[in-house]
């Protein structure tokens, strides 16, 4: 179990800043997900830790710098997106490769390979070549090869991307169980927020070479610190509003259509122009006004029956489209396209965001 620390990592390709003074600590045994859109730098960060990419700043394993150590001396296990299995070597030779490089004696090498074959349920495939096994099996061989050397750290670069949905979900569970069993510190790169949410202890959301927010999945989802994170994690309905502080724990908000409501707030949000984010599943169709809830009004544009839930598109008074997710409680609720509807919500569920535009981000519409 090892702790990994990154301090002020900077990577520059010609004039593009791929990583912008990035700092991060990964706790021993933690499963951390690096999440973000393509080009955000998550794969570059992985390659910095692995030692494939020159960088400025410091990478420390258990407090000791590894900056001088080239990739082949950092003792890291990596699983690449395309698995990178050696096509000319058998499964057994692939798994044993790292041990062979460390000049492990033959008996110890053989028994460790057997151990890995059993752990990743690859018995019977030892003499096959990568071209002769399925995608899921290749993925497991790649994993086995990475952990066979008992690395300080496991790096996974979108390893499940090539698998179909069902297999991917199974592998997610297996992967997490495996990681818990051997207790290895793991960093997992993905662009799929559902995958990150289901696998990771903590998620670091990246954009433009920097970490925008880091925390447990629930934290990121319930309390996103920026518009980018709010939009990236799950669905959001965004409204611009002006806010005035009424007293110590209440914020008075006015939205463009003229409606106002009070939000509980503990003095954190500034006043003036703010953004409000509403999660689709926290909006209720046709709720009656009461002191506990606030309301938005609009007309129904479209309803989609998706089996597990019903997704309704509502056009608010000022033209903004809101997506509402209603759980399927049996039977279609009365949803008539074109009918006026009120959306009820609990003010405590509203997320307040103040956003400075990030480089590359357009103005809010």
């Amino acid at each position, binding site marked *: 179990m090892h702790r990994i620390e990154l301090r002020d990592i900077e990577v520059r390709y010609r004039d593009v800043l791929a990583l912008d003074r990035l700092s991060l600590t990964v706790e021993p045994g933690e499963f951390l997900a690096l999440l973000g859109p393509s080009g955000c730098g998550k794969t570059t960060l992985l390659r910095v830790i*692995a*030692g494939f990419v020159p960088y400025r700043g410091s990478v420390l394993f258990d407090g000791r710098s590894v900056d001088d150590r080239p990739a*082949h001396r950092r003792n890291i296990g*990596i699983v*690449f997106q395309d698995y990178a299995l*050696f*096509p000319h070597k058998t499964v057994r030779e692939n798994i044993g490769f*790292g041990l062979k*490089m460390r000049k492990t004696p033959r008996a110890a090498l053989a028994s460790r390979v057997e151990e890995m074959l059993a752990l990743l349920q690859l018995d019977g495939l030892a003499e096959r070549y990568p*071209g002769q096994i399925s995608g899921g099996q290749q993925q497991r061989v790649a994993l086995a090869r990475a952990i066979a050397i008992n690395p300080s750290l496991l790096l996974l670069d979108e390893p499940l991307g090539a698998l179909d949905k069902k297999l991917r979900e199974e592998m997610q569970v297996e992967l997490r169980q495996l990681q818990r069993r051997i207790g290895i510190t793991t960093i997992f790169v993905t662009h799929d927020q559902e995958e990150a949410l289901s696998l990771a202890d903590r998620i670091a959301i990246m954009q433009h070479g920097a970490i925008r927010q880091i925390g447990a999945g629930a934290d990121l989802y319930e309390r996103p610190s920026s518009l980018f994170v709010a939009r990236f994690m799950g669905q959001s309905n965004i409204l611009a509003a002006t806010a005035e502080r009424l007293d110590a724990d209440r914020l008075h908000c006015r939205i463009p259509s003229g409606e106002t409501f009070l939000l509980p707030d503990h003095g954190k949000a500034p006043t003036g122009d703010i953004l409000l984010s509403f999660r689709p599943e926290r909006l209720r169709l046709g709720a009656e006004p009461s002191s506990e809830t606030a309301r938005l009004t609009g007309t129904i544009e479209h309803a989609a029956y998706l089996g597990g839930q019903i997704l309704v598109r509502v056009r608010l008074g000022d033209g903004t489209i809101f997506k509402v997710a209603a759980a399927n409680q049996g039977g279609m609720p009365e949803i008539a396209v074109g009918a006026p509807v009120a959306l009820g919500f609990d003010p405590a569920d509203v997320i307040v965001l103040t956003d400075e535009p990030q480089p590359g981000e357009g103005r809010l519409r």
Partner: protein
Amino acid sequence: MEKLGPFVRAAAPACAVLLIFVACLATLAGYSFRPRLGMAQMGSGFTLESYAAFFRDPFNLAYLWRSLWIATYTTAVVLVLGYVVAYHMTVCGPRMRLIITIILLVQFFTSYVIRTYAIVLALGRYGIVNNGLIALGVISVPAKLLFTEFAVAAGLVLVAVPFMVFPVYGSIAGISPNLRAAAGSLGATPAAVFREIVLPLSLPGVAAGVVIVYLFNLTAFITPSLLGGGHVDMIANLIFDRAMNTQDYPFASAAAMVSLLLTLIIVYLLQSGFRRTIRGAER
């Protein structure tokens, strides 16, 4: 099976050309079994006398051994030189790679006669190699470099290098960079990465290059002609001489058939030899 009609029509002209080619080879084979009746005369009937004459005379066989020997060691040298250049092309910058590619392509598309003649000029008594050696003080009198086996070998090597570089480069460049990265992350030093990953996966290209170069060197005509001056004749020179100068067609045809057979055997041996070494790399 209704695809058969259009296929035949599309392939017909090419098949016609192929047929002409095969017919010519068949005629050649036929000639090799005809009796020799002196210059430009040929009888009818079937005989193995040309083949017998070829194999019985150690003078003839010497051409064969010399060709095989020279082809073998020159191909080995070309392999080393070509591999170095091909490997360099995969690790150098794009501008250098472009320059090298252009140089190689110019070689590739220039007639062998011209390229070999250039080497003749370089190795002559007053050529640059001699001048250089004298200037360096290695020798005091111009050495006889031309018309020696060394000259022929040098010519074969220099002319063949581009043919080795392209296929080898193709196979090394086709190795995914993630494979090298994976090997490195598992503890392989750069030397180990080369030995365990690059070298084995470059074998298909090496095989292709070796076959091309070996066949070319084995049956070379121009190089032994210009650089050997008659002193280092190889099998192709024998065939040409007997056909065009002596007009002993049956013998020349027999010698030609022998070289064809030799060529096919060597291709088969090289390809199956490489196939066994390549094993799982192509799957």
